[in-house]
């Protein structure tokens, strides 16, 4: 159980937690920073001031109620579908790899990839806007045709850790994959 602080590609601080359950089973959790209260208040005040200004000119109360409903709906959608709290990678040798993202409202979405479909876990680099970023990804193969890579699944898409964090996860995963080959 080791929890370390890293930064993501935008400079926000994230934390990586490695848990070793057994020789061949490890779990990595990357936690993103929580929703900032100051940002929420700034957005809400902005929307409501704007709505009040519109109400001042149009004298229509529907503007105010619609602004309230919009703010509430927007916040609910944001915490349920957009804001990711932590992402987990669970690797079990000779069984498979499980990726799960947990959102701020508690919702979890999980994918499990079996070992016979998994070719390798690698660190890839990509050109994004004006910078080059590194990301960890899983190469998927078809069991009938083991040499070709059919698709690539990128990991930690919402937290985007930097290279030093990725290298740690990569080394750990490769130890386990080497055992099961």
């Amino acid at each position, binding site marked *: 159980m080791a929890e370390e602080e890293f930064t993501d590609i935008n400079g926000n601080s994230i934390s990586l937690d490695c848990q070793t359950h057994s020789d061949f*089973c490890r779990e990595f959790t990357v936690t993103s920073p929580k929703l900032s209260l100051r940002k929420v208040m700034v957005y809400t005040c902005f929307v409501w001031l704007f709505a009040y200004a519109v109400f001042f000119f149009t004298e229509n109360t529907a503007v105010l109620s619609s602004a309230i409903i919009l703010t509430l709906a927007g916040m609910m959608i944001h915490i349920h579908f957009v804001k990711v709290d932590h992402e987990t990678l669970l690797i079990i040798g000779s069984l498979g790899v499980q990726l799960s993202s947990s959102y701020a409202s508690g919702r979890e979405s999980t994918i499990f990839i079996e070992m*016979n479909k998994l070719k390798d876990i690698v660190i890839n680099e990509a050109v994004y806007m004006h910078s080059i970023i590194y990301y960890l990804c899983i190469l998927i193969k078809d069991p009938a045709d083991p040499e070709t890579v059919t698709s690539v699944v990128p990991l930690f898409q919402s937290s985007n850790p930097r290279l030093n964090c990725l290298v740690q996860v990569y080394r750990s995963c490769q130890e386990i994959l080497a055992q*099961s080959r």
Partner: protein
Amino acid sequence: MVLKIFFPQCCNTADSGLLVGRWIPGHNSAVVLAVIHYPFIPGQVKKYLSELQSQTQVDLTVLGSWSMPKEGQEGMDSFLKDLSTIFPQECWLQLSREIGKRGFTCQVVQNNGRLLQEQKNGDDKIVLIHYDQRKVMLSQLHPVQDVGQKSDVEASELRLVFQTVAQSQPLFLLDKYDDGPLKLSHWQSEGREASIIAELLKQASVPVCIFLTWLLSLWHWLCSFRILHLRPVLFISSKLSTCVQSGYRAVHFKTVFSPKKAATHMEFMRYSTWRVAKELQELLEWLMGAPAGLKMNRALDQVLGRFFLYHIHLWISYIHLMSPFIERILWYVGLSGCLGLTFALSILSDIVALLTFHIYCFYVYGARLYCLKIYGLSSLWRLFRGKKWNVLRQRVDSCSYDLDQNTSDTALFPLQLFIGTLLFTILLFLLPTTALYYLVFTLLRLVMVLFQGVIHLSVDFINSLPLFAIGLRICRPYRLAEGVKFKVLCQEPGTPLHLMMEINPLKCSSVLQCYRTPTYSCYPKDSWAALCKKLFVGELIYPWKQKTAKTD
């Protein structure tokens, strides 16, 4: 290699006994299906297993022994070790659990008596995966593959596990509470109570279905009357979407029956008909003046305007005449809307089509006039340039002004040229008026076509909606599985790794994609470019037609 043992949750608290299950070929794993308790006769166990093997096509074997000793049952360990000689296996599993502890201990003995792995701290290569037997048995792993399509070795491990549990249903018929030679523990021993109402409904459903089938056959007999297959009736019924839908409905009734009531608004109908006619009248009067500031040819304007106004006048009087009967007809037609929401929508579409029939007529008149005008203009324009349309060769040929009769080209006399020019000028200057009328009525017609198209699309959508699959996804999400989820159970040191396997249900969008029933989908006949060309030239546009006889 890591040995994976899939262990059902219901057997966590079972008494000591033999483990029955299957070794998954090609992967180093085993699925435990049930526990047979003491006392048993080994010969009977073997006989029972071979019977089940032939019944289920699953190679069930004795995997090993399970011991959960209660007080006063010491000395079981040596007894359990001796069992491995009675049931000779390549690998013999010995799982044991002590009361009060959460972790199991596991030992694997190989055929030559050698201990494969002994549980030591940090040296275990055994994973115990707990699964919910009832849910895995009922679940269907997506994407669905046909049985026997791929050989066992190529299929993935999880798919084989799901298949094994699903195919071993006959094994779960015998329970430890039955009076038989063998006492088994599996998910049935959890003691799920059944509801008597559900059982009664299941029994009653058979006679109800028989009755409904009889009603359906009656309907088929009615529809197969000869008189309904005569040419004019057939033509009208193929144009009215209500008749088309009732045909589909009779086919669909065989599988599903959904009684729904539709509300009729008779007053609304009458008012809206009158309203449409009034609006059209105002529109025509606007056209007859100076619409949008354009100056129209007064004479032609008046002619066309008066003609259309008279048409509307006829229509309004027709409606006034028919209004006492319309109520009755609408009531009975609306009653037939209980045959489903799609039926009601089709009725709406047909009623709208019938009510706006005069708009359709106006569109046809305007389009024909415009088409004739454009045709005349293009032909006379060709005359100017000295070209002629060759009907035989279906192309444009040149004409000369030679008066020589011996040339192969047809000659043009100056008189023809003079009359052609005159007509061309007349048609050209009357073009804006006709074009404006055409434009207005075409727009109205397009609005109607769009409305009907939207109704047909929604009817399609409702027809193809997989209600049962969506209901399953909401109420019993474990039946449709996209994959599995693993959770690590906190364990005690010295025990192998324990994982909890749960079913990851299919996403709602994948449910819709996978289970959409193939429909008689409707689609526009022309692409956008062809549509624009037709509009420009003045050809008639027909509403979206439905494809017939799409095979299920």
